[in-house]
């Protein structure tokens, strides 16, 4: 089902009424988890997978119902360089108050009470105080990946989550459970439900039809097949290709009655010609790999897992893939999760693991693995230098 069908949008979250939004299994599952009372729901997914669009849409729908209160918080609008733990909690509290139309007097008093001593107590008491609203509350917190990047301790927040009887937290972002847990052990301990957001299925991508309809001579099914062949339904990449196709017709660089859409060439231009620097989605996958798997031992395990996947066209059962690392299977599982959150791999509903799609397979190839294994200054091997002729 689609919400609207005006244009393709590659990049940024989809606002209702503006662009193509395709509902997926996660849309229904999220509401289901909230309604059955899950306290902490986590969406740890790569960039441009549709997390923010899903959060906004669900928040709007819940607010419209009237029987509960919902607030959306973007940590990118709260946390900044040098932020202190108490500042961060107070800022979040102030934001929540603003959304719910509450006065800031209470939180100011709370802060004075715990000034300089106990950010955790401030956080706990604020979350508990939300019970006075006498309604179920859902708080969506986006961009959780900021927490380890800013080297923030959020332990007080995670340990407070279970204390609020009537509050469900939905946390989303490009985050590594391991990295967050490093400074906030309470995150490991918190009882949480992870909700995967799967890429578009081929049937779901049929919705692209209506945007290609305006070009009657295009064989839209074939074009969508070609897009899917490269993207396996990754939302951003699929939309980017769709956007490029429609733009090329609208800008008249192709004749209006043309049937020629060379998806392979479009993919080459958009995603392959400059390898990881062709597109931000690839550059950020690479950057996140380096961030999440900075530790050399973890990095090597990740590369071995990835290499095994690269050596086969098929998906591999997760248990088989991790069998080699049975001495520390929990750690291997965290590493595999990190690979998925970076965007390099995917795990399906049957716990089969594969490389994200053909674009990723082409860019993050054997040479990329080799570079990762080499010295930290990897570009030394790939950068030209200038020496005078002898």
């Amino acid at each position, binding site marked *: 089902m689609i919400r609207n069908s005006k244009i393709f949008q590659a990049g940024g*979250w989809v606002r209702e009424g503006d662009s193509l939004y395709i509902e997926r299994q996660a849309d229904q599952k999220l509401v289901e988890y909230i309604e059955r009372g899950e306290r902490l729901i986590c969406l740890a997914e790569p960039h441009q997978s549709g997390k923010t669009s899903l959060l906004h849409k669900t928040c709007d729908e819940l607010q419209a119902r009237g029987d509960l209160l919902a607030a959306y918080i*973007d940590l990118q609008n*709260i946390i900044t*360089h040098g932020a202190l733990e108490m500042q961060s909690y107070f800022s979040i509290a102030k934001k929540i108050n603003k959304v719910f139309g509450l006065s800031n007097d209470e939180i100011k008093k709370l802060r004075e009470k715990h000034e300089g001593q106990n950010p955790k107590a401030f956080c706990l008491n604020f979350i508990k105080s939300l019970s006075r609203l006498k309604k179920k509350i859902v708080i969506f917190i986006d961009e959780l990946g900021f927490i380890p990047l800013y080297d923030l301790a959020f332990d007080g927040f995670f340990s407070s989550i279970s204390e609020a009887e009537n509050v469900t937290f939905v946390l989303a972002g490009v985050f590594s459970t391991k990295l967050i847990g490093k400074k906030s052990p309470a995150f490991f301990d918190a009882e949480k439900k992870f909700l995967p957001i799967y890429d578009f299925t081929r049937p779901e991508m049929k919705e692209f039809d209506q945007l290609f309809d305006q070009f009657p001579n295009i064989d839209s099914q074939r074009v969508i097949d070609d897009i899917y062949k490269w993207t396996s339904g990754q939302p951003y990449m699929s939309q980017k290709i769709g956007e490029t196709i429609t733009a090329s017709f609208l800008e008249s660089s192709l004749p209006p009655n043309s049937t020629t859409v060379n998806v392979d060439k479009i993919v080459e231009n958009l995603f392959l010609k400059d390898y990881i620097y062709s597109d*931000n989605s690839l550059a950020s996958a690479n950057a996140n790999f380096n961030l999440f798997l900075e530790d050399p031992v973890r990095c090597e395990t990740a590369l071995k897992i990835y290499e095994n996947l690269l050596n086969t066209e098929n998906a591999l059962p997760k248990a088989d893939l991790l069998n080699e690392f049975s001495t520390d299977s929990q750690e291997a599982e965290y590493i595999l999760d990190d690979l998925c959150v970076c965007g390099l791999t995917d795990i399906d509903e049957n716990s089969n693991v594969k490389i994200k799609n053909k674009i990723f397979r082409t860019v993050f190839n054997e040479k990329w693995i080799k570079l990762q294994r080499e010295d930290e200054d990897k570009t030394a091997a790939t950068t030209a230098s200038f020496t005078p002729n002898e």
Partner: protein
Amino acid sequence: MKALAGLYGKRSLFIYGAFGAGKSPFVDRLISEYVAHDSQVLWVRINFSDFSSDALETIDSLWKQIVVVVAKQTNQELAQVTGNWEEYAGLVTVQVSVFDFFDNMFKNLDRTLILVLENAHEIIDKPYVNFFFDNLRGLIGERHFSDALRIVVSMISDFEEAQDLSVASPFFNFSLGIHLSALDEIQIAQLLESYDFDNSEETIRKIKELVGGNLYLVSTLLEHTAEANQDIRQVLASTDVNRIFDSRLETLRSLISEVDGAERILDGFKEKDAISIQTSNLDKNVYDGLAKIGILNRENRETEILYSIEGNRLKTFVGDSFSNF
């Protein structure tokens, strides 16, 4: 056109290129063309080069400075703005104060605001630079005023550095990257035509050989020729042609000297006529630094040295293609 289309489509922009690529004139033209389309839009142009070192010192001081300028140019009551800011200073993070400022402003401002942040490379070495770009992304993604706010950032940078600028949530996800690269033959021909100069292949070839397509230097050459009321072919044939660029060359040398290790490498060019490019262990920082200045042009996996410092001579060399993988 891509930039204008982006703004009309409610996208923010990231304009980047080497030194002298023409970012400021590009922004000038962007504003004038957009205003012709929509005179109701409000443009606030902020140049980071005008900020004091104190203002650039921390992310807090930078944002406060930006907010003050925006408040003044949007005719807001400055005392109220700073009062609101001070009420929660230290209690909340600066990003919350920034958000509240824009939120309050847009409640009263019934216009679109395009905020232009020029010479943003002034903060490139600051520890908070990545977070600043993430904060920008947060602002333009904010649903309450995302329809009313667009941000245009321009800076000396190249593509790889631009990609690295956002840490957690890439600025490019929301903004459209506009890379101002060296002029190609067609663009040089168009410029020559605008001056009513000879635009033969030979003239274009000589210009490319001399200044490698750098807009700054091409403009210097053409303006000088126009002011001297001379024929461009005569100017190019003159043995004194290099003198036209003397002051620009000094600026260039000063920029190069700020790239650690660059002088040592370029020293090697002094006595030579040609340079061969080999894959070896050039320090990435030097390479990146030279690319940003415009000494190198790194596109489509080819590296072209645009010019070398050899006394006062400028020469262009084209290197072998190289591949990352």
